[in-house]
């Protein structure tokens, strides 16, 4: 590699730097250093004339390295890199010394500050000597998308992408599309018909030219990386079909919790203790009847079944409260004279229009009873003849402080939503991870709720955590936006300052594979060396420091660069 010819530029930043740092002294100090071809200072390096100065010098003195001592690289690194590029040298052959935020602004002794500045500049000079040109890299994105799960989120995402004219492969485990919503009669809080809502969507998906639906199909294994995934699926036992796609959306949803394990409720013991999903079936069939074919005179709805209780699931299922209030209206309409008991823990009417819906429900001749979902669950017992009802619920009512008996003929258990059985298999296939509650882990709980740490793989809807329809749908679109964005670009940029393995040094100990948070490193059995997939690598450098053989180079942060920077900062003492 050619001898480094370094141009050093010290910025005054008006008086911001020059007030506390003797800019001239710094310049003179470094002029003489080896490989420093030229050292200058200027009032505002970031200003256009400042940048022009650099560009001119690069051309004039054919510099191949540039150091700028100015503000924080977080502010102007990009500016100067672009300047270098303009002048025709690789932007990564540039280094910045932070002499404003981390020197002139924080110190009060001019000589001290100046010395520090010199150290920092020298360090930058030493470091930049070992910089290597790096190229921006992209991978092409296959415009097709694989969506796993045909629930409301999956369907929405599919339509969103397909309507943009892009191919979608929609894979559904069961024999029909529509997911959980298809099992509902009404939706809250506007009590609109779920069937009327979902049917046309399923129709549209079925007839969409850009969507190919695979029912009764599961994803076993996915190979490849962002932009270029592959999988083979066998449609109901037929010979496997090879699919290629650039992005994956997981929308596998959740399944209802089985309350048999909760002894207090005697689910299955008492035939008229039913889950919310079983109740929806009754609603769809049009009749609310007990097993004795009678209309219940007393109906109790118990919230938080399997939720918010360490014995079952600690998390809140987010939708049950509102669904329960929905049932109040439905039972009241069908059974005008029935007594309805809403046995709840906290009323979670948090969404748009929910609190209003809750208020409305209180006018429907209903009795709210509060229990402690952690310490003492209500107990459902068989009733005596004298009670003239089928069952008796015994509970401690919190708001009155009374322990009470509630006569009931039918009990609806608002069951928690929990992970599907096959979730582990999906997770393994698409290379994402699960949290303690068996929910898919998003890339960032706040700023990236739909992406995952695996590029090109997105998670939407309830598999990321319980959600109501609007929130699921919003997530579905969010993922669609990402994917459409990537497709529109045709390619996605990937990290430049990645790690790479020097195969000559690699001893094949595979330590690096263990430490990589992105599963970017794999082991090449034939050559007995580790290989970094630079598409998956995010360049944190953890592997580099773990490698006992020093075989892993983390680009732009190589040992050599950092060590010489250390020498640099210490050189003047």
């Amino acid at each position, binding site marked *: 590699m050619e001898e480094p010819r370094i141009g050093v530029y010290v910025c005054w930043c008006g008086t911001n730097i020059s007030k506390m740092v003797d800019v001239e002294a710094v310049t003179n100090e470094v002029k003489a250093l080896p490989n420093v071809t030229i050292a200058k200072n200027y009032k505002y390096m970031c200003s256009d004339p400042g940048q022009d100065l650099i560009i001119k010098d690069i051309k004039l003195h054919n510099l191949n390295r540039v150091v700028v001592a100015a503000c924080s690289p977080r502010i102007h690194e990009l500016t100067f890199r672009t300047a270098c590029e303009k002048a025709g040298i690789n932007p990564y052959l540039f280094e910045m010394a932070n002499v404003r935020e981390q020197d002139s602004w924080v110190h009060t002794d001019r000589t001290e500050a100046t010395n520090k500045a010199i150290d920092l500049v020298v360090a930058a000079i030493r470091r930049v000597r070992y910089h290597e040109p790096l190229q921006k890299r992209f991978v092409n994105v296959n415009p097709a998308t694989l969506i796993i799960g045909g629930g409301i989120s999956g369907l929405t995402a599919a339509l969103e992408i397909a309507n943009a004219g892009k191919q979608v492969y929609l894979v559904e485990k069961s024999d029909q599309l529509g997911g959980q919503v298809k099992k509902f009669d009404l939706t809250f809080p506007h009590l609109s018909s779920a069937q009327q809502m979902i049917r046309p969507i399923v129709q549209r998906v079925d007839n969409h030219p850009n969507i190919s639906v695979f029912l009764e199909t599961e994803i076993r294994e996915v190979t490849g990386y962002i932009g270029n995934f592959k999988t083979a699926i066998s449609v109901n036992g037929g010979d496997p079909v090879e699919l290629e796609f650039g992005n994956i959306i997981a929308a596998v949803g959740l399944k209802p919790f089985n309350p048999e394990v909760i002894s207090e409720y005697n689910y299955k013991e008492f035939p008229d203790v039913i889950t919310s999903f079983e109740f929806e079936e009754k609603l769809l069939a049009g009749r609310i009847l007990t097993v004795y074919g009678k209309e219940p005179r007393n109906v109790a709805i118990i919230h938080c079944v399997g939720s918010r209780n360490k014995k079952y699931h600690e998390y809140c299922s987010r939708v049950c409260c509102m669904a329960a209030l929905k049932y109040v209206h439905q039972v009241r309409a069908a059974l005008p004279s029935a*007594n309805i*008991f809403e046995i709840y823990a906290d*009323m979670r009417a948090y969404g748009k229009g929910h609190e209003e819906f*809750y*208020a409305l429900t*209180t*006018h429907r*001749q*209903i*009795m*709210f*009873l*509060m229990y402690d979902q952690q310490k003492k669950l209500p107990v459902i017992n068989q009733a005596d003849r004298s009670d003239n009802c089928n069952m008796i619920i*015994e509970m401690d*009512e919190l*708001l*009155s402080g*009374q*322990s*009470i*008996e*509630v*006569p009931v003929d039918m009990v609806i258990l608002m069951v928690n939503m929990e992970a599907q059985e096959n979730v582990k298999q999906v997770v393994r296939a698409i290379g994402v991870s699960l949290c303690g509650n068996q929910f898919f882990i998003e890339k960032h709980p706040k700023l990236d709720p739909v992406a995952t740490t695996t590029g090109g793989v997105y998670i939407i809807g309830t598999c990321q955590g319980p959600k109501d329809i609007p929130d699921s749908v919003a997530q579905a679109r969010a993922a669609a936006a990402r994917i459409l964005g990537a497709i529109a670009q045709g390619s996605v940029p990937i990290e430049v300052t990645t790690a790479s393995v020097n195969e000559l040094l690699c001893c094949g100990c595979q330590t690096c594979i263990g430490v990589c948070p992105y599963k970017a490193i794999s082991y090449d059995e034939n050559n007995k060396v580790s290989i970094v997939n630079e598409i998956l690598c995010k360049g944190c450098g953890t592997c580099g420091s773990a490698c006992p053989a020093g075989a892993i180079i983390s680009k732009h942060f190589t040992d050599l660069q950092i060590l010489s920077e250390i020498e640099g900062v210490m050189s003047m003492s």
Partner: protein
Amino acid sequence: MSVRVHPELRNQLMQFGIGDWNACYHCGTCTAMCPLSEEGFLFPRKKIRLMQMGLKNEIESSVEPWLCYYCGDCTSTCPRDANPGELMMSLRRYLTSIYDWTGLSKKFYTSEVWEIGSILLIAVLVVIAFLIGLPAMGYSFTTELTSQGGVKINSFAPIHIIEAFDWAMAIVVGGLLISNILRMYYKIIWKHGHTKVTFWVHVREFWRLVFNFSVQPKFGKCDDKRYWFSHWFLMSGYTIMFIVVVVFLPWFQTEKILPPWHLQRALGYYATFGLLFGLLVAITGRMRRKDVKFYFSHVSDWLFLVMLTLTVITGILIHIFRIYGMPYATYIFYIIHMAVLVPMILIEVPFSKWSHLAYRPFAVYFQHLKTHAVPRKTKINSIN
């Protein structure tokens, strides 16, 4: 031991003017707002809860409704428009009907026909008594005036007859009231199987009854002191009048016109002013409907106000006409006066709104009995 909830009780309660109490979502604001709700006797929220759950016995055995003087702070701050203040009011109506063994109270509260009908009936009887009864008994009134130029009222309303009637009425009303208060005592104190109150406590705490009756310190605790004053002024006026008329009628209803500073007239004037002032505040309040306290008016509220006002005004007129010697006017208004007064006493005091003048202080008394209640012997527990 667990109690059974009764959803159907709501329908009964509704008849007593209870509003949208299921709206309450138990934030506790009302209780915190209320300066009167105190340790062990929390309201309104707790009482609302009992109603929502239809816990009949718990409602009937509670004194709290009587501890509330309806300042309205709870209602104005209620985030759910559940209207706790009016709820307590309605509960008082309900309890009045529960205490009353005759069942008339419930009739009066729940049916306007019954209430107004019976009032009219009694009024008519009174008129008949004066126009036919007295003459038939051989009393004939004179129109000639006294030496002072006053009306010879006793010739029209023979003092001993009226007095006798007063006493009779007082006894009937008192009897009813006392029997109801005994039922109240039974429901609040006695019925509680697992606690009992020693006789000594009954004696020791008795002063509270008197104190609360005469001063109404609880009302004084409410943030708005004006209402305490007007209420107390009215109440004291009424009581004085009542005593004077029932116990000292011969001393009060005299033909001799005494000087204005004479105790007889002074007392009369005080009572009249007290009543008028209190009534004025209440009526204007209920008409303006600005304060929450007066926003909701049950029929019983209005009836009572109207009748009392009539009584007072007619009373004043009688007084004037008597002094200025206008016999006919005096006699006519005497009849009207009685025709309003008698039903008011007979209906309102034992069965309706006016009964609270007895129930309130007793409630406070019972409250303190409750606080000093001690657990009974186990054998009684085993019975429950």
